């Protein structure tokens, strides 16, 4: 074997006093890290194949295993991290583009952690969500600029564009069947249905079995048009046009033919084993006018009954782009920040392209307000909303609702080992291998998703109550409820908030 220069990233520590050689770790590891050596009569490891997914640690009946970062390291330097050195080795030996998955792990500022939420004291008393009604239901879509009333005093909603009614201001963002498993999709679909919110098919079509959840399904249309048919468009409660993704702005999708299994082939409506290519540009869209053409073709095909969503990645000129989209006829805009997850993205793109959702959201909301077109479109913030407090801060910066994906995957067992692109997910999520997929039990997983959203919703209500706010509508864009901590004047200006103490 030639020297490959690459030391194992993780060390697998086995307590041989505890190990009973049951070989459960060996059976559970799709990366084939553990193996039994009959000559030595003990369990040994191929450490270099370990991705630290924690499956073996969790499953070991005698707690004999620990995975740690390999303490063996190259000579320390701030400029050249071990990671960078290894990446150069990998590229030198293959000539290939580095591929990664899940959100940008680099040490960029997380503005959510530099904003603090207000609470009432003495005046404008806080509200107890356990005893008082609190409204976190949201309607997404174009709103009338002025309220007019009917003769009986009720609000006139005639001529209102179609609205997406969500019981919680939290939806599950797009993850295609192909990138995640059948059981993961089923879990999301059932959870969205029970909650009264929405999950999103991603660009890989809608599996026949999941048409039953259609009232809680957002169907996506991307440049490859996979699985897009009349039935598919009719099935969605809303249609999302994917122009970009936060994890890989300017980059499209490429599902290799080997991942196009029988079932994925049926869902995408392409032959088994062929590559599914959806390039970043829609080659029929080169302007806002062209986008408008696609939006209205979808509206025409579905009789103007469904809201059309346009999803873009947060990039430098996001406010101007959003202004165009708000005038394009789209009902809902999704802005996806650069820390959003992905099933596979070139590493350099994921780690260096795009901007944080916090800054993008604040500047888009402000721009649309300045231009007096904020009512023309609802805004959904996506791309690393990690907790209910991130969500509350997003609402205060102007979001009508948030999309979550990484927290949803965590809810169903993801351990964020960031190896989705290997398609050997030991937790049965980012894989199509039947033996791995069956490890994810949708009956259990969907309840965990429901629990997560219920918990977040209660926390959102508590934080709103603390601010003396009883309706999400009063929190939306209410930047007085936020203060920055440790931010520069420039950052505060973009976020449209004051510093703590002001």
């Amino acid at each position, binding site marked *: 074997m030639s020297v490959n220069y690459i030391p194992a990233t993780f060390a697998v520590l086995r307590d041989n006093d505890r190990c009973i050689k049951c070989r459960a770790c060996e059976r559970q590891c799709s990366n084939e890290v553990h193996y039994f050596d009959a000559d030595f009569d003990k369990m040994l490891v191929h450490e270099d194949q370990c991705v630290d997914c924690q499956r073996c640690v969790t499953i070991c009946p005698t707690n004999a295993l620990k995975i740690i970062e390999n303490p063996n390291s190259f000579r320390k330097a701030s400029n050249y991290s071990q990671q960078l050195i290894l*990446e150069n080795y*990998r*590229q030198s030996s*293959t*000539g*290939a*583009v*580095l*591929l*990664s998955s899940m959100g940008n792990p680099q040490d960029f500022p997380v503005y959510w952690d530099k904003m603090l939420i207000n609470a009432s004291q003495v005046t404008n008393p806080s509200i107890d969500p356990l005893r008082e009604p609190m409204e976190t239901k949201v309607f997404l879509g174009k709103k009338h600029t002025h309220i007019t009333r009917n003769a009986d005093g009720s609000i006139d909603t005639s001529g209102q564009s179609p609205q997406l009614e969500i019981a919680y201001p939290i939806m599950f963002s797009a993850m295609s069947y192909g990138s995640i498993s059948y059981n993961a999709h089923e879990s999301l679909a059932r959870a969205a249905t029970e909650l009264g919110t929405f999950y999103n098919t991603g660009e890989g079509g809608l599996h026949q079995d999941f048409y039953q959840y259609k009232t809680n399904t957002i169907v996506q249309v991307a*440049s*490859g*048009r996979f699985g*897009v*048919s*009349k039935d598919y*468009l009719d099935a969605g409660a809303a249609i999302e046009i994917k122009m970009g993704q936060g994890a890989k702005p300017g980059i499209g999708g*490429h599902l*290799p033919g080997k991942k196009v299994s029988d079932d994925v*082939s049926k869902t995408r*409506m*392409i*032959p088994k084993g*062929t*590559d599914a*290519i959806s*390039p970043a540009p829609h*080659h*029929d869209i080169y302007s806002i006018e062209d986008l408008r*053409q*696609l939006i*209205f*073709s979808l509206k*025409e*095909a579905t*009789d*103007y009954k469904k809201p059309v969503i346009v999803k873009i990645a947060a990039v430098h000129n996001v406010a101007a782009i959003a202004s165009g989209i708000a005038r394009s006829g789209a009902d809902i805009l999704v802005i996806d920040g650069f820390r959003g997850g992905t099933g596979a993205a*070139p*590493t350099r793109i994921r780690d260096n392209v795009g901007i944080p959702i916090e800054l993008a959201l604040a500047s888009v909301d402000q721009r649309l307000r300045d231009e007096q077109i904020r009512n023309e479109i609802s805004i959904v913030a996506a791309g690393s909303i990690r907790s209910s407090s991130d969500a509350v801060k997003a609402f205060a910066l102007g979001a009508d609702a948030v999309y979550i994906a990484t927290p949803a995957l965590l809810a169903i067992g993801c351990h964020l080992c960031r*190896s989705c*692109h*290997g398609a050997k997910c030991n937790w049965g999520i980012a894989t199509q291998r039947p033996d791995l997929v069956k490890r994810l039990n949708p009956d259990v997983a969907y309840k965990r998703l429901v629990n997560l959203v219920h918990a977040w919703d209660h926390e959102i209500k508590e934080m709103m109550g603390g601010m003396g706010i009883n309706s999400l509508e009063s929190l939306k864009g209410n930047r007085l409820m936020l203060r920055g901590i440790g931010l520069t004047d420039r950052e505060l200006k973009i976020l449209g908030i004051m510093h703590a103490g002001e």
Partner: protein
Amino acid sequence: MITIDAKNKYYKELNREIADAPDSDVTVENVCGQRYIGTNASDKTITVIGTPGNGLGAYLNGVNLVIKGNAQDATGDTMNAGEIVIHGCVGDACGYGMRDGKILVKNDAGYRAGIHMKEYNEKIPNIIIGGKTGSFLGEYQAGGRIIVLGIGYEDVCPVGGFCGTGMHGGEIFIRTKKRPVNLPAQVEITTASDEDMDSIKGSVSEFCERFDIKASDILSSHFYKLTPNSSNPYTELYVNQ
């Protein structure tokens, strides 16, 4: 047969009227730029007299459209079934992502005809263009068949540059003696064999019959056939981080 006058009608109103027409045979007169004709209709034959707007027959699902005039951009976008027959020219991105059915264009097509065309099981889409096409014909083609007859362009190659860029499925036939220029390495070009010609004979004959062209003259000409070169595929080389 029902006749609808499109004069001064907004597309939304016109398309609703066509879809609701109590006859399966509808003729629309004085069409001038109205978009998405046929998109919301089903089980109809719609004859369009005039110039329809963009997105003609988008997501078409079993409707027959006959255009007595030229069509514009994004005709037959993501078409699922049916037929679009154009007695004239068509604009850009004709048949984007189409999965089944056929588009017959008497004269020329613009850029990117047949982009992202796909096939699935028994669904095999067909685009036949009588004249010439712009650049990027069959870009990202993943299935189905595109035939360019080049009638009236016998001395030049009737397809533009970068034909079949990103092609990874399906086939393109071009009636010409001039090889297309700058083909990507992933596209293989051969002279159509007798067997190949047999495979397109039915489609070409049908086209010729529709537009009153002598099929034997066309079928006896030299055709090139373009297919993805499986020995040189688009395997993007990635290494796991």
